[in-house]
């Protein structure tokens, strides 16, 4: 079944039909990709792009890098969070705040040195949350590290800053956890307006109980209270965030009384990947409006019911013989699909070379129906990268194009890719941006940590180079109308692992996006589509009652075309969008 995927994958990537038996190897096709052979360089690397362009770049500031070693792990940039005109960029050395009022010239508002890695950020109102996992992390944010192996100065967990005065963030709480915080996810529960919750994923060794009472790194069989095989839930009282504390440690991998109930670790048979055992989540994406969360949990992908945020319950789990390490997750807008990523090699290895399988270190797409997950296809950047480019699937999120499931995603030095997973079995790349390696001779950890759509632009966190801002450009795989429809979706605050439901407002561009899609997939006879396009154009020129009436008439006429169309669902969505337009007038 899955052996055909590699061919499908390439066919999708290049938008051409390959004859199944054609003697075109992945390498031969991929070698013609403009991403192959880009000039190396830190700030003058060659660039290749399709369907998008780099419009702005903010250089990594001096105090957030080690000038003598551009790959110094202590200074890597990490994830992003967004609020208003500000982008919060995490770093292993602290965090940075960019003012992106002018996307062509992102302005560094401030840097905050507070080492401890990975610096995963979330923002909520005047509160900024930062993950810390390393033993060098200090409660006081000092850069000198912590010499003693047991120390009250050490901080591993989640810091909470008050950023009311953005130029002077003030740490108001620092919640210690046993394994530190590799990532965390903000959980906003509408029925609990007094509290925020954080789901904390720790992946590092547990610390000594002498440093933090109750911590244990033992195996489940040796210690029922082990700090492994769980997540930590922090409650943040909004009226008194300084009192934030851990309120539960859900055993979300349990089956019956066995707290280590999921994947034990190991391979899945001859020729398969070796998958880590499930004793941690790496990242959790919550979709509060659906009452769901998707956990990427080292050895498994899981789905949680989070209606009670303090006591999440696992309702589904899946494993995959091509996955080494379940890393992150993204829901489709209707929560009927989940994209899981596999961080084979941990993000520090060059896993996108021509010899690496396109199904390893890739995204695996699953359909989700009533707690049952069914595997679909895989997506991986199709252009082979060099041996000095760390590359594997990493963080991303949806681009809100109506009628399609589209996602932007960082691939470290594989650049960033935008792909369509509307058909779970056949994901298709539709845009990309890539730079040459940092160096031709040496692998410096760098590249796009993440790529996220926010208010009309794609923001990407470049680990070694700074902040990238890109804009989509129309191609035969994504039209201007679809881009315009995506731009209708704006928010005042955005944390990528806290997904929110996308609802498109009434707009001509939404209807035209559907029409473009029906043209692309021949979902409606072309003469009928042309007539609807002309009627829609004519209606737009009208005003008042005449416009409303024309739109209502058009909506009913489109509804009448549903039965004869080959893509009935899309024609129906088109009719509804025109009706919504009429109602808005």
């Amino acid at each position, binding site marked *: 079944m899955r052996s055909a995927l590699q061919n499908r994958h390439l066919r999708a990537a290049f938008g051409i039909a390959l004859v199944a038996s054609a003697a075109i190897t992945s390498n031969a096709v991929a070698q013609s990709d403009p991403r192959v052979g880009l000039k190396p360089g830190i700030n003058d690397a060659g660039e290749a792009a399709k369907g998008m362009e780099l419009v702005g770049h903010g250089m990594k500031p001096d105090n957030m890098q080690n000038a*003598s*070693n551009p790959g*110094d*792990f*202590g200074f*890597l940039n*990490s994830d992003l969070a967004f609020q208003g005109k500000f982008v919060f960029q995490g770093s*292993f050395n602290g965090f940075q705040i960019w003012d992106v009022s002018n996307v062509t010239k992102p302005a560094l508002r401030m840097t905050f040195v507070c080492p401890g*890695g*990975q610096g995963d950020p979330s923002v909520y109102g005047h509160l900024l949350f930062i993950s810390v*996992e*390393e*033993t*060098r992390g200090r409660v006081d944010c000092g850069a000198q*590290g*912590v*010499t*003693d*192996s047991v120390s009250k100065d050490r901080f591993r967990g989640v810091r909470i800053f008050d950023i009311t005065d953005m130029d002077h963030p003030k740490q108001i709480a620092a919640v210690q956890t046993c394994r530190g915080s*590799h990532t965390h996810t903000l959980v906003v529960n509408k029925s609990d307006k007094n509290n925020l919750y954080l789901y904390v994923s720790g*992946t*590092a*060794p547990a610390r000594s109980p002498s440093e933090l009472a109750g911590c244990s790194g033992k*195996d489940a069989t040796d210690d029922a209270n082990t700090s492994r095989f769980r997540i930590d839930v922090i409650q943040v009282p909004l009226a008194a965030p300084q009192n934030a504390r851990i309120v539960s440690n859900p055993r979300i991998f349990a089956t019956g009384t066995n707290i280590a109930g999921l994947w*034990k*670790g*190991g*391979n899945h048979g*001859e020729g398969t990947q*070796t998958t*880590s*055992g499930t*004793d941690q989540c*790496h990242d959790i994406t919550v979709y509060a409006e659906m009452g769901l969360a998707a956990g990427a949990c080292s050895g498994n992908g899981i789905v949680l019911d989070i209606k009670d945020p303090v006591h999440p319950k696992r309702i589904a789990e899946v494993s995959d013989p091509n996955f080494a*390490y379940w*890393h992150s997750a993204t829901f489709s807008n209707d929560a009927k699909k989940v994209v899981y990523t596999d*961080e084979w*090699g*941990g*993000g*520090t*290895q060059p896993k996108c070379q021509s010899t690496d399988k396109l199904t390893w270190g890739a995204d695996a797409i699953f359909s989700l129906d009533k707690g049952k997950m069914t595997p679909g296809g895989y997506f991986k950047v199709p252009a082979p990268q060099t041996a000095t480019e760390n590359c594997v699937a*990493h963080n991303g999120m949806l681009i809100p194009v109506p009628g399609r499931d589209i996602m932007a995603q960082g691939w470290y030095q594989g650049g960033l890719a935008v792909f369509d997973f509307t058909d779970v079995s056949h994901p298709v790349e539709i845009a990309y941006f890539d730079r040459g390696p940092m160096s031709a001779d*040496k*692998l410096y*950890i760098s590249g796009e*940590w993440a790529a996220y759509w926010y208010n009309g632009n794609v923001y990407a966190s470049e680990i070694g180079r700074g902040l990238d801002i890109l804009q989509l450009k129309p191609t035969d795989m994504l039209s201007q109308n679809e881009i315009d429809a995506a731009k209708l979706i704006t928010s005042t605050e955005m944390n990528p692992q806290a997904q929110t439901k996308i609802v498109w407002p009434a707009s001509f561009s939404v209807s035209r996006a559907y029409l473009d899609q029906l043209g692309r997939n021949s979902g409606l006879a072309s003469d009928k589509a042309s007539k609807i396009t002309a009627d829609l154009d004519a209606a737009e020129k009208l005003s008042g009652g005449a416009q409303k009436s024309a739109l209502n008439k058009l909506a009913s006429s489109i509804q009448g075309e549903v039965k004869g169309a080959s893509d009935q669902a899309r024609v129906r969505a088109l009719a509804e969008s025109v009706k919504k337009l009429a109602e808005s007038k």
Partner: protein
Amino acid sequence: MHGALHHTIARHARSIRAGIRMAAITALLAHAPASLRAQGTGNPADVAFMQGMIGHHGQALRMTSLVPERTTRADVRMLAEKIEASQLGEITTMKRWLADHHQEIPADPMASGPHTGMQMSGNMKMDMPALMPGMLTEQEMAQLAATKGADFDKQFLTFMIRHHEGALTMVARLLGTAGAAQESQMFGFSSDVDADQRGEIKRMRAMLNAPAQKNTRGK
């Protein structure tokens, strides 16, 4: 990103001695010109850990190289292949770290016997344990090489579990050493070694107790 590294194990008294010598050099470098210090010469415990782990990996490779000719089990063969496949990348990473910190890189661990190490001054050698935790003596290596079939599988898994447990001890000692693992990469590396060794120990214990899977590809 999740940590950097991986599995496996093994190392050599020779490398340990090299580590100690490097620690001495590191101490000297503490008084080196600022220009050199700015590049960072690494914490002595971190340096010794990296140098030691290269040799530790080397012994694991010597152990896994015995597998194809001797095992009767597919799962043991696949485990050995996995360990081998990850070795080169890990050794490359460790060598790169040592080079970045201007530290001596131990010679190719695969070429190592017990007596091929660099020469040490006598008083440094005295403080050295013969082997790091979990390592096999040359006698045990020979004993492993002399077995075949089910005996080999049992012996291999038993020794490799011990070897992995030794790596966990090395990580625990590192994290318990004042000033160690304060560099991001060292923390990530040692975290990964810890996670991977734990996982493989669990797997190997299960394999010791499991009915053998027939090795259909080996000899």
